[in-house]
């Protein structure tokens, strides 16, 4: 037995969906002769996550992220393969398992709309069998970590999206789960609230050693929280490792900005790399990763450089390119 918090082996989920052509004719045909076909949402994926790890789960829409998350928390029964989360088979939904996990979904709320969050939170406390005194302690602790105060006493409908999300997190974490499944937890939030939520997740992880699997469209969430990312596309894992190696795979070129104190010709700069942008005292070059150190030392030796900056193209940009490139992914 491994000590992993989450271990997944050849996990597969097939859906059968019915095909319908548009229009009245299609509808009638669909009604009379329903044709279903099987779609593989998740295709034999395997990975394992250690206790306390924060793993980013990324991929385009429909890649299978949500289906995987829901199989991990037990909502969806896998077609085949094995899942084990803290030693439980999730889809048995045993209370002992459920008390240790939580699922937070950015676009679905569990707080009652007409009531203050505190009321819904106390319902959860009763459901998880937490004593009133302990409940109050935990609410105080989480509220101060989240920067929530009086908002907990106002009806949910009167809260801003950011305040509501923070209250959702409080409700979802009251039972102090050790495994967190977060599906787009910062969806639609403004930048300040996004940062607040990230900081909170990071300190919750530190304080309780919780394991987190986080899917997000905002790469900022991933880059600031997760050292490891799992990239999924068409139901398959195409990268599982550090964010840095993903960047290296996706972007074999580095971008180098030069500022010069004497004008130089295009040709004299062009021999060090591919010119992206050029004025006589400024240049932006693309240089292969492998040749980077030697090229830079040559540049510093040969050219009158006043400033030099090496950077990776932004990860958002890389991922976007990756998904736009479509079917033929080869990394």
């Amino acid at each position, binding site marked *: 037995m491994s000590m992993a918090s989450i271990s997944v082996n050849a996990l597969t989920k097939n859906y059968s969906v019915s095909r319908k052509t548009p229009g009245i004719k299609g509808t009638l045909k669909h009604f009379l002769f329903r044709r279903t076909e099987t779609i593989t949402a998740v295709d034999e994926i395997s990975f394992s996550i250690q206790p306390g790890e924060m793993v980013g789960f990324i991929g385009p829409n429909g890649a299978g992220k949500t289906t995987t998350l829901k199989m991990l*928390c037990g909502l969806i029964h896998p077609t085949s393969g094995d899942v084990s989360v803290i030693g439980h088979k999730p889809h048995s939904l045993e209370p002992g398992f*459920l*008390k240790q996990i939580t699922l937070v979904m950015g676009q679905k709320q569990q707080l009652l709309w007409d*009531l203050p969050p505190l009321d819904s939170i106390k319902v959860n406390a*009763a*459901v998880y069998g937490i004593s009133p005194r302990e409940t109050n302690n935990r609410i105080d602790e989480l509220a101060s970590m989240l920067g929530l105060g009086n908002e907990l006493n106002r009806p949910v409908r009167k809260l801003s999206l950011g305040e509501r999300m923070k209250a959702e997190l409080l409700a979802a974490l009251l039972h102090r789960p050790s495994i967190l499944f977060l599906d787009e937890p910062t969806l639609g939030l403004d930048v300040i609230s996004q940062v607040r939520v990230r900081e909170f997740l990071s300190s919750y992880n530190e304080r309780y050693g919780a394991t987190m699997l986080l899917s997000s469209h905002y790469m900022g969430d991933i880059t600031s929280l997760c050292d490891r990312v799992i990239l999924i596309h068409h139901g398959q894992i195409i990268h599982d490792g550090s964010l840095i190696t993903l960047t290296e795979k996706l972007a074999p070129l580095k971008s180098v900005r030069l500022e010069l104190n004497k004008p130089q010709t295009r040709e004299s700069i062009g021999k060090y790399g591919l010119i992206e942008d050029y004025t006589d005292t400024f240049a932006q070059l693309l240089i292969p990763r492998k040749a980077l150190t030697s090229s830079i030392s040559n540049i510093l030796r040969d050219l009158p450089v006043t400033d030099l900056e090496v950077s990776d193209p932004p990860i958002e940009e890389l991922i976007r390119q990756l998904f736009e490139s479509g079917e033929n992914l080869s990394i």
Partner: protein
Amino acid sequence: MKSKFNKYINISMVLLRFWQTSLAIELEYQLNMLIELVSVLGNLFGSLFILSLFYKSGPLLGGWNFFEALIVLGIYMILEGITTSILAPNLSRIVNHVKNGTLDYVLLKPIDSQLWLSLRIISPWGLPSQLIGILLIIYSLVSIQVDLSLFNILIFFTCLFASSLILYSLWFLLASTSIWFVKVWNATEVLRSILVAGRYPMSAYPRGLRTIFTFLIPIAFLTTVPAEVIIGRVSNEYIAIILIIAAIFFAISRRFWKFALLHYTSASS
């Protein structure tokens, strides 16, 4: 034993919280109480009027006299009240849970999901109907001089419990199908309108309908049979039959819910 006891304590704590929060929501709308009262009274007088028309032609309707038929109506009104208080607000929400994907949150709570879905909300607006139903029954029992002994009252409440359980199980069974037929199907409303057939004694209906209401959709066991037991038209052993039927329906509803969850695919983003 102790853990079992603790479990029940815990469940009652949960229910207390459930009902506190749902009453808090409902009581935000005080006008509802008035509207509900008016509609209950309207319903009552409508039914009484129709019933009095039936009895214009003779003293018996399918072998029931007027006061006996009133008892059936009374039981119907109590069930209608229970429907408004518990069944309708909870069970018609299951469809929305499935549609919006919030069923996920319910399923991931360490509590029986059927319990949560069935008893999460309690609405006070069914009370007028229940009160009027009870008054109607007491008035009729006194009029036909049935002995109001403790034993009879106990039998009455047992019957009422069993028929509510049958109604609940049927309703929950239908609501469970929303796991497959999201939004196409609001079966619960259909059931509610069939229940209206329970206003009058079963023998007042033609033979074909009577068979359907007895064997297919057990409306007969919801109002007529309990009324027969209370009046003493049939022997007390009939209680056992109603209870067994209730137990069977309840077991089926639980089984079916477990089965439905196997097919739950959860609304995606």
